């Protein structure tokens, strides 16, 4: 019974998308909303059931009944494990929340919007659950195609169009990189099933072909995950996409890119790369740390709230990559918990930004100064969201971060804790600054709006203004924030995730289960449930305090002694301007950076393997 639920997370939303498209001219808006919402909720339930059901043993589902014959897979399999099912659940939950938010947010939205959202959901679920390399690629492409269209939803404006074009061109090149990598893997192994490929590759050397295959596939996914130097498209697209869509981009799509790398690495390449693990760890951690720090700097120097949140996502992806890059079960588990906590917090903050945009027709912090004083609930939400982003225990973000830091210090990379604390303090502080200035009116209003702002035309409203914030807009945001709190309080979540991560990185066990139908995927041994770790709590409180300080400093920066101000602007402004200048909006620059990034990653791997 549980087994036959496996195809539903992708098939159900896609079928409903087709249904809504066929009925689009005959069905009123409320019914379209209702059908889409019910579908989203159903998929969430199915994914959660799959998550529970696959806790001890992955569910292997062969489409068309084509079970492997003598170790050769003829068909396509879904391999549902706790991490994949968890991501699919998060995606489904966020889609449902975004759809609920959209009920009142878009006034004249056709069924096409719902069709695209449901297709997006199907693609994300399929991407998380599939056990086949080419299937992973087609789900990736579906996700991209839908995302391009959704980004340019407001076609009457320039910004979204350019954002969508940059997004589409860069990510399409990324997809071709992935496809080339897949072709190389296929040429070597004659297989497309992860498990079968993993077996075949483990038996051979890690030569140029294998190395480049991994580099190409990983770079394609990392472009989606927007790590430095592939990150340029993200800020353009996120700031310009409609808010409910941003929720999905930041909350789960970008994280799926990281998941793709993890899945590809551990099911296929971990065996052959085993002897070079130390060097590969260094590369991944390096890219992760650079992304975490640069993203945080961009984030705190931004005043357009949606762009600020977008840059904060880049920084947090950096943290995820470091967690993954430690290549240990604990690090991976920390990243998984962090995805959950961060996705929920970030989604709720984006919805909050959408409410602000809806109320005041602007997302500029300067223009919004002090105007949110009467929005008590929303203000509280931003405040709590900022603290959660900074890693306040017991939010899921704090737990995930604590686990990554623990894994880092176990692996002898304790300096990573500093990187993570800086990233959380800056990104959390930026949100706290927004909360303080917009909702509390702290500090001084700034005379002229930021000239570096992107718009040469006034930002157009995404939706007609509501006089009072409707409950259907506020409720999803609050529920998601509560979910972020709850995610840190699930009993034994740390231990269970670590167990799941142990199974996730067990390549040989994975192949056994998929190809030979072995009963159980053993993890690396029994784990002892641990209570809340005091040092983790202390670390979380520390980074939260740092974030509050950053926020206060940013709010009252004008009140600092004049000499300090001048010195700061003399030493900080020029490099910051230069960094921000790289974000030129010209897709040709981004393509050059993409080439540079792939070349750098490739050279790094070439040296690592030899």
């Amino acid at each position: 019974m549980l087994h036959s639920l496996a195809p539903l997370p992708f098939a159900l939303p896609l079928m409903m998308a087709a249904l809504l498209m066929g009925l689009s001219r005959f069905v009123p808006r409320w019914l379209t909303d209702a059908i889409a919402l019910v579908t989203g909720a159903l998929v969430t339930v199915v994914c959660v059931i799959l998550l529970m059901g696959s806790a001890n043993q992955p569910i292997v589902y062969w489409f068309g009944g084509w079970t492997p014959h003598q170790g050769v897979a003829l068909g396509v399999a879904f391999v549902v494990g706790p991490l994949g099912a968890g991501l699919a659940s998060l995606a489904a939950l966020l889609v449902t929340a975004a759809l609920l938010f959209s009920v009142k947010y878009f006034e004249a939205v056709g069924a096409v919007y719902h069709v695209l959202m449901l297709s997006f959901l199907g693609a994300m679920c399929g991407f998380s659950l599939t056990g086949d390399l080419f299937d992973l690629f087609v789900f990736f492409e579906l996700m991209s195609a839908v995302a391009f269209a959704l980004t340019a939803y407001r076609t009457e404006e320039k910004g979204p169009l350019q954002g969508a074009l940059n997004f589409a061109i860069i990510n399409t090149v990324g997809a071709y990189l992935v496809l080339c990598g897949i072709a190389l893997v296929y040429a070597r192994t004659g297989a497309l099933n992860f498990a079968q490929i993993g077996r075949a590759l483990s038996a051979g050397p890690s030569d140029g072909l294998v190395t480049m295959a991994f580099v190409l596939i990983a770079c394609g996914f990392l472009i989606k995950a927007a790590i430095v130097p592939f990150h340029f498209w993200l800020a353009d697209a996120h700031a310009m996409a409609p808010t409910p869509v941003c929720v999905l981009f930041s909350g789960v799509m970008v994280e799926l890119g990281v998941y793709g790398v993890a899945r590809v690495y551990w099911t296929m390449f971990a065996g052959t790369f085993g002897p070079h693990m130390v060097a590969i760890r260094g590369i991944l951690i390096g890219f992760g740390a650079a992304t975490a720090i640069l993203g945080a700097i961009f984030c705190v120097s931004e005043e357009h709230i949606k762009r600020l949140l977008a840059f904060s996502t880049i920084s947090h992806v950096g943290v995820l990559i470091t967690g993954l890059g430690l290549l240990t079960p604990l690090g991976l588990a920390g990243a998984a918990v962090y995805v959950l906590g961060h996705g929920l917090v970030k989604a709720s903050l984006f919805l909050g930004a959408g409410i602000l945009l809806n109320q005041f027709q602007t997302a500029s912090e300067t223009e919004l100064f002090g105007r949110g004083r009467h929005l008590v609930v929303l203000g509280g939400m931003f405040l709590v969201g900022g603290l959660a982003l900074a890693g306040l225990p017991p939010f899921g973000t704090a737990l995930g971060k604590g686990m990554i830091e623990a894994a880092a210090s176990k692996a002898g990379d304790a300096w990573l804790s500093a990187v993570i604390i800086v990233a959380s303090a800056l990104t959390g502080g930026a949100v706290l600054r927004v909360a303080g200035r917009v909702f509390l009116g702290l500090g001084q209003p700034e005379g002229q709006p930021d000239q570096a702002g992107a718009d040469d035309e006034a930002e157009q409203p995404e939706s007609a203004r509501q006089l009072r914030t409707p409950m259907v807009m506020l409720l999803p945001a609050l529920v998601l924030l509560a979910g972020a709190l709850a995610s840190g309080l699930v009993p034994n979540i740390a231990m269970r995730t670590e167990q799941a991560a142990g199974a996730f990185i067990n390549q040989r066990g994975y192949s056994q289960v998929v190809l030979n139908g072995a009963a159980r995927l053993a993890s690396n041994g029994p784990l002892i449930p641990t209570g809340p770790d005091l040092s983790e709590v202390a670390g979380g409180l520390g980074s939260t305090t740092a974030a509050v300080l950053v926020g206060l400093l940013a709010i009252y920066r004008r009140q600092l002694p004049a000499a300090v101000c001048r010195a700061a602007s003399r030493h900080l402004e020029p490099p910051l301007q230069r960094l921000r200048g790289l974000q030129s909006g010209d897709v040709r620059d981004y393509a050059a950076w993409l080439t540079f990034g792939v070349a750098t990653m490739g050279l790094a791997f070439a040296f690592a393997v030899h």
Partner: protein
Amino acid sequence: MSLLPWFVVVWLFAVGLYGIVTSRDLIHQVICLTVIQSSTYVLLLAIGYRRGAAAPVFATLPSSSSAVDPVVQALALTDIVVEATVLALLLALTVQAGKRFGTIDPQQLHALRG
């Protein structure tokens, strides 16, 4: 000869990338993307090719005789659909950009900066 297809693949990918980076016209840029994609077709089909073997269509071929790999061909087929659709989306974006910006020169699109 035996290495020629691989060189052609790399060449097409590089040439397409060069076109994208130096382009002064979005439509030109989009066409360069399809050149990159064509390199993936060549790669896939060359990988599945077996010297002297026939197409995997067994209507005219006794099924025991050797045929080239059908899987890469199925993948290439899927790839072609993906190409056409992504291209359509990009062109729709280009049409719209032409309306809003009055130009489709990437150098003169100035909605996002800083």
